[in-house]
């Protein structure tokens, strides 16, 4: 009895997911609801729990690979099949293979590769090089990585000690071609040295590695014995790295952000607008409330809740900006769920304040803080990250005074709140020093036009400028 684990639909616009990390290895026991793997989609790591208790029979998709929603990821068995030893790998052992595997897989390679581990494989009575007690050889997450050209029944990569692996790579030896004399058919040092000697693969170097120097370091490998590395790491798109270049491997989050940004720019024709907001009364209000707020709530009162509230109310006036595009028409959203961008260690996440229009300023302050704290700690859930209808980005915190933000798909727009700076401005034909802030809007020009977008921006401006001594936080 096996259960297939498939790539779940992790968000409304999510069509695929990347395997971030397997939390269980093949052969390991797993309980129901225990986390099995981490999946990375748009900017989030989601832990996928096992729907059943059992033993991880096999892992189909390796870490780092991206597969569509619904693709088979792993098989959880009831533990009986996994306890069976895989076939010993000597070719021509006379093993009879099971005819077909059960359960569909999306990766043909993977299926062929792991077919033999699915079911009990009868051990050939004769011919097997190592008829010693079969030991369950742990299949690593190697699915699809290598396929031996050997006959049916080949069990894939063998387990080998660090020394044997080093000798194999130095001498270009395929370990699957050596009949191991060690425990469970393991290729021992003696086996591989004898093999190298028999082949005369690398004259003059087949032997015990040279003794380390007095400093105790691991001995250097004789240069002549080292063949050019086979199939170096793929640097296809990076090209040949120059001496003054360095390749920083992509984190799953970096890759997800990159993919999302390209898709957004290619999907929505972005148009931009900016207004200037006089936030002098708001700055005064916050300064007056700071001490009392901190004493009462235990954290800093930021400008974000004021901005979010103004944006939410403006969205109520301009529902077309709280919407998404479809070929059949503009889909208006009844709920206002505002995403707030949070910078994290290796990128950016945009968790969502649900029903932001139903919260007071204090409620928004708590919601913003909660998401920021959990975002930086990497403790956001998939639920926190989906369902946003509009995004507010506090770029001013980074010192920016104007931005051209990219829309968080499939939303209609994104607004940035820029740095608050004191500037001389004209008030009643006199020059006054005021605290000024720019707000920049990017909107999907398919959905609406500049007139509506600017009406929205003016509405935000009016609301932010209206904060003052009488504003109630609670």
């Amino acid at each position: 009895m096996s259960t297939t684990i498939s790539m779940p639909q992790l968000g409304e616009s999510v069509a695929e997911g990347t395997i971030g990390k397997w939390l269980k290895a093949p052969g390991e026991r797993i309980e129901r609801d225990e986390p099995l793997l981490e999946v990375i989609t748009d900017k989030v790591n989601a832990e996928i729990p096992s729907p059943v208790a059992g033993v991880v029979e096999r892992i189909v998709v390796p870490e780092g690979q991206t597969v569509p929603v619904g693709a088979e990821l792993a098989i959880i068995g009831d533990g009986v099949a996994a306890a069976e030893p895989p076939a010993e790998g000597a070719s021509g052992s006379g093993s009879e293979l099971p005819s077909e595997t059960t359960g569909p897989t999306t990766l043909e390679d993977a299926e062929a590769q792991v077919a033999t581990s699915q079911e009990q494989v009868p051990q050939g009575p004769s011919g097997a090089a190592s008829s010693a007690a079969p030991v369950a050889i742990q299949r690593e997450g190697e699915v699809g990585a290598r396929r031996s050209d050997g006959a049916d029944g080949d069990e894939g990569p063998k387990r080998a000690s660090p020394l044997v692996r080093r000798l194999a790579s130095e001498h270009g030896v395929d370990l699957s071609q050596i009949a191991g004399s060690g425990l469970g058919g393991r290729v021992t040092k003696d086996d591989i040295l004898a093999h190298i000697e028999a082949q005369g693969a690398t004259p003059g170097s087949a032997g015990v590695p040279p003794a380390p120097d007095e400093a105790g370091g691991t001995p250097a490998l004789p240069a002549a014995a080292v063949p050019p590395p086979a199939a170096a790491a793929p640097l296809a798109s990076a090209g040949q790295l120059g001496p003054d270049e360095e390749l920083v491997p992509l984190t799953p989050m970096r890759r997800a952000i990159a993919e999302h940004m390209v898709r957004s720019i290619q999907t929505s024709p972005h148009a931009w607008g900016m207004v200037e907001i006089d936030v002098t009364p708001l700055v005064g209000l916050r300064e007056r409330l700071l001490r009392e707020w901190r004493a009462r709530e235990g954290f800093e009162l930021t400008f974000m809740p004021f901005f979010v509230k103004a944006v939410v109310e403006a969205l109520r006036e301009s529902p077309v900006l709280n919407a998404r595009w479809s070929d059949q028409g503009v889909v208006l959203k009844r709920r206002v769920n505002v995403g707030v961008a949070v910078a994290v260690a290796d990128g950016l996440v945009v968790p969502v304040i649900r029903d932001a229009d139903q919260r007071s300023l204090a409620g928004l302050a708590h919601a913003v803080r909660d998401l920021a704290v959990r975002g930086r700690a990497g403790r956001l859930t998939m639920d926190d990250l989906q369902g946003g209808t509009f995004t507010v980005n506090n770029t001013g915190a980074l010192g920016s005074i104007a931005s051209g933000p990219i829309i968080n798909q499939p939303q209609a727009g994104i607004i940035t709140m820029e740095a608050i700076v004191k500037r001389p401005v004209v008030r009643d034909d006199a020059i006054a020093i005021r605290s000024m802030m720019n707000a920049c809007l990017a909107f999907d020009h398919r959905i609406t036009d500049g007139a509506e977008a600017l009406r929205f921006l003016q509405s935000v401006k009016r609301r932010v400028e209206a904060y003052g001594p009488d504003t109630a936080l609670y």
Partner: protein
Amino acid sequence: MPVQTLIEAVTAALREEMARDSNVILLGEDVGVHGGVFRATDGLHKEFGSERVIDTPLAELGIAGIAIGAAMNGLVPVAEIQFADYIHPAFDQIVNEAAKIRYRSNGAFSCPIVVRAPFGAGVHGGLYHSQSVEALFYHVPGLKIVIPSTPYDCKGLLKAAIRDPDPVLFFEHKKSYRRIKGEVPDEEYTLPLSVADVKREGSDISVITYGVGVHLALEAADKIAAEGVSVEVLDLRTIVPMDKAAIARSVAKTSKVLIVHEDNKTGGVGAEIAATIVEDHFELLDGPILRVAAADTHIPYAPTLEEAVIPNVDDVLAALRRLAAY
């Protein structure tokens, strides 16, 4: 060459060093008139007098403290802790004072003491006369720890320890005091600290060990040689600072390692040796690093239980066979 027991080698080393340097003094419980419970200082009180061979009260903290103070003022004390099991009251003096004096005084003071202590099980001493304590001090920077396995090594290393400018813990396995005999030259010699010794050459498996483990390993190596397995026995002799180069040479030769000590397995010296090998020489290894050590419990008084808890030749043989088959 004359044959001596290990305890005779201890006495000879002490006598020679006291004759060589009038600053060398001995102190401990019953080391004077009585000549020590194991007779390690037999005759020295008569020979050198009570100014230099000092009977102390039964207070190990004081023994260590007096030795440290005397060392800082120019003497070269050799303190005896009657059984290593009783070194624990002196732990603070050894760890917090002796080990730190050179560092704390920026080299202005040093602490050239030797603390000798009989240790180990196998003589039905029960809980309080059987302990191995090396791991407790192994962790502490500033201490050297020597554990000899043969009379020859014992004499040469003890003399070197007395001449060493820093604190040395010199642990002598009490089971080997009279059981282990060996040739010891009449001529003056010392052996360098922190240099391991290959007690038996071999090509298939390295046994890295010290103290009585050396003798277990040699006996097991003899037996398994009949099965066609060639075992090398590396005697560390000094466990801190250990001879990493010798370990590297042996591992490069055999690619398989067994570590043997009588101290408990958990958090023992073997763990550090294994970790060092894996860190530095991962790609020399052709099998898991195994440890044969005492069970993680106390040394029982009942002989049958004691025998079950501490490692014996059969335990070493079983581990060697497992590695050979791997």
